[in-house]
């Protein structure tokens, strides 16, 4: 160690933060050096987001010291954090859906004339400049509520980068992004990095760490565990530091016995907006993976099947009988469940308890003839899934709002596991879930399939699709371009089918 060492860009020491019933952070330390990307990893609920929210001035710490370039720093609110050069991309979106992209990005920083008047044209131009610089194809004038989750994430990223930030914090920025978009993001991060800036990067995607980070800090149960140089660390080691045990991954599955009659069959599914003649079937005991680029229409297929969106054509058949599904309630009655990709808007009841969320889809099973609910059995089911999925919560009565992002996702998964469906459609089920828990969820899905359920799994993480699916359906621009057996599917093959745009001619 050399004697003359410049102090790190950012240094945290002895940081603790408790919530009622939870000690989220316990004497944590962390240092971010100039010009580096520091990855922060840990299981769901380890305290990563809480730590970052302390830095962003959203929470105040119970104890601990922050130093920036050696100077002690007391952060007084989000505004102050921004002024100190700390910029954050939140795990959960913080956008104003009714405002446009440009208005969102510059909210609170509008240029006004006469103290009052705004010039949206100038604002749009400024945003366009920013997008050009960052290489993002966003329309400044579009209302944010019309954007998909992925593009909303892009807005968040653009907003964070629009500040003159020294420290950029990214809390699972890639959870909603696909590979191509991750490339853009990494490109941005590399361009942002300079000798007087630094990035704290939180992710559950282990393979990203090697690509982008310089060092990796690990949190477990609110405590600081260790920091590794990325170059010398291997993934297994990081994971075992995170979860405190070894994980083993299973092999890729093969096709199920072809003799099985399909449980769900979709013929010629079309929607006005996007889908064109999508046809496929799923068998009992099978996991059918859906791959494709963002906006390829996978979510729309799922929503159209369960009646959440209007179908403009197509026949859905369950076990050989055509069925008429008008809304998700019809679908649920027929035994089709849909786990949405948008957790906050379409997944959880934030202000209700964990157990209420878990039994929401299956509530009728807990109701006597007179309509009375059996709270004891609900509690039992809640407990069962909390332990089965290792949901980190002080009790099943905890409000879902107070869980970490990954644990909220587990609650949504539990909701569908608790309901006895014949067909389960999981849209990005492992979004925000830590590596250890992912394995457990994979195992659960496999187990469900083995019990004879038909599972459709939409995922933007190709490795996950390849890992889990018996067959893989690939979509591009609202059409199904291929359905491959797992054995025939390589990442290259999938990408090939996923980029067969209609402009190039008819689909294979």
């Amino acid at each position, binding site marked *: 160690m050399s004697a003359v060492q410049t102090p790190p860009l950012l240094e945290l020491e002895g940081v603790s933060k408790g*919530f*009622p*019933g*939870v000690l989220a952070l316990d004497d944590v330390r962390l240092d971010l050096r100039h010009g580096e990307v520091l990855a922060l990893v840990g299981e769901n609920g380890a305290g990563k987001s809480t730590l970052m*929210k302390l830095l962003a*001035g*959203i*929470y*105040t710490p119970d104890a601990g010291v922050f130093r920036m370039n050696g100077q002690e720093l007391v952060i007084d*609110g*989000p505004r102050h954090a921004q002024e100190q050069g700390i910029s954050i991309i939140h795990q959960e979106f913080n956008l104003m859906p009714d405002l446009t992209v440009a208005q969102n990005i510059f909210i609170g920083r509008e240029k006004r004339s006469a103290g009052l008047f705004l010039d949206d044209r100038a604002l749009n131009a400024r945003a366009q400049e920013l997008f050009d610089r960052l290489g993002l194809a966003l329309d400044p004038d579009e209302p944010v509520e019309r954007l998909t989750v992925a593009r909303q994430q892009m807005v968040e990223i653009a907003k964070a980068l629009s500040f003159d930030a020294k420290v950029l914090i990214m809390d699972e920025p890639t959870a909603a992004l696909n590979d191509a978009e991750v490339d853009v993001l990494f490109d941005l991060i590399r361009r942002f990095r300079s000798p007087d800036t630094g990035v704290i990067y939180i992710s559950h995607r282990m393979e990203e760490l090697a690509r982008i980070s310089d060092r990796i800090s690990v949190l477990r149960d609110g405590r600081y565990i260790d920091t590794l140089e990325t170059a010398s660390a291997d993934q297994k080691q990081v994971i075992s530091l995170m979860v405190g045990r070894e994980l083993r991954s299973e092999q890729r599955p093969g096709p199920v016995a072809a003799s099985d009659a399909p449980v769900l069959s979709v013929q010629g599914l079309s929607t006005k907006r996007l889908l064109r003649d999508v046809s496929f079937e799923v068998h009992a005991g099978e996991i059918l993976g859906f791959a494709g680029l963002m906006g390829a229409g996978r979510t729309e297929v799922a929503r159209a099947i*369960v009646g*959440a969106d209007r179908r403009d054509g197509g026949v859905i058949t369950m076990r050989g009988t055509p069925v008429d599904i008008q*809304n*998700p*309630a019809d*679908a*649920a*009655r027929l035994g089709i*469940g*849909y786990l*949405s990709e948008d957790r906050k*808007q*379409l*997944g*959880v*009841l*934030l*202000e*209700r*308890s964990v*157990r*209420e969320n878990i039994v*929401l*889809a299956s*509530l*009728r099973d807990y*109701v006597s003839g*007179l*309509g*009375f*609910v059996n*709270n004891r059995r609900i509690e039992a089911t809640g407990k069962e899934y909390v332990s089965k999925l290792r949901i980190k919560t*002080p*009790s099943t*009565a*905890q*409000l879902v*709002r*107070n869980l970490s992002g990954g644990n909220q996702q587990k609650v949504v998964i539990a*909701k569908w596991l608790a*309901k006895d469906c014949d067909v389960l459609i999981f849209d990005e089920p492992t979004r925000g879930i830590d590596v250890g828990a992912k394995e457990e969820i994979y195992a659960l899905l496999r187990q469900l399939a083995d019990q004879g359920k038909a599972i459709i799994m939409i995922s933007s993480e190709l490795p996950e699709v390849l890992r889990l699916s018996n067959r893989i359906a690939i979509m591009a621009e609202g059409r199904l371009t291929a359905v491959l057996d797992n054995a025939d599917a390589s990442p290259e093959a999938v990408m090939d089918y996923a980029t067969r745009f209609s402009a190039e001619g008819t689909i294979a």
Partner: protein
Amino acid sequence: MSPTTTPTVDPQTPSTSAYAAIDAGKPRFAWVRGSLQQVLAAASLIVIVIFFSVASTHFFTANNLISILTAATVTGILALGTTFVIITGGIDLSIGTVMVLCGVMAGVFLTYWGWPLWAGVLATIVFGGIIGLINGVNVSILGIPPFIATLGMMLIAAGLSLVISGTKPIYFNDTPAFQQIMNLSIIPGVRFPLGVAIFIVMIIVAAILLSRTIIGRYTFSIGSNEAATALSGVNVRRWKIIIYTLAGLFVGLAGVLSASRLSSAQPTGGMGLELEAIAAVVIGGTSLQGGKGSIIGTVIGALIMAVLTNGLRIISVPQEWQSVAVGIVILVAVYLDMLRRRRD
């Protein structure tokens, strides 16, 4: 409802500065605090009662307390039903005039058509349910915002009451027993009216419905996140219709009781009653954003309003000052409630 009646910061009032709100109290022993909260919410009520008891010897008498309960009965029953609607995130502005219309219909059934008492009463309650059902369909199937759907119904009902009654009160001369529904003394010696007993029963019914049945569960779920509830396979449209219908049944009952109390169906009035009922609900801690609320809160809210009105009259506050006093007390009571919750 689970005992977790959320002491978290009300999203309606994120004004502790929104981010502080994010940091604000998360429940440790949520259920203990939940019930504590309800006890404490009663604190304002108790303070007000003590104040008036000290201020006038006429206040804390059996007779006057019964008068207060009697005065609270009709608004209270309206508020009970409307609590469900408000927890779904909706609103029902029509309850006042629909109640009046239900009274008129009771007059039609009993006096014009000469139906037997039980049939007329039942039909009136069902009529209220049907209006609720129409509100539900307008909101849930046609997609009209609840404010507008029920504002339209408010106006329609106000007009229909006049049309149907010929703008004259209808008297229940042929069914003198009708007025006993509200007024019958059920405890010998004390003037404890049957209507108040019905109110108490309805409180219990509503509390059980909200906290122990599937209707209550879905009421909270829909108010908490309607889209997520629908995607969980709950037929949200149907349940919303059911909830508005339920509220309508309460309105029908309130119509019976108020007509019974006045021994006549008055075809006018009712406007403004909806604000009173909604105020009772909101003072009781139910959020107009939906997803949060309780029956006990609504009852306390209704009692606060009734006690205030009565007490100010008892201590002979000049009438022009009465509404000033009510306004200030409501503000202070709710503010203290906020403070307490924030401290949690």
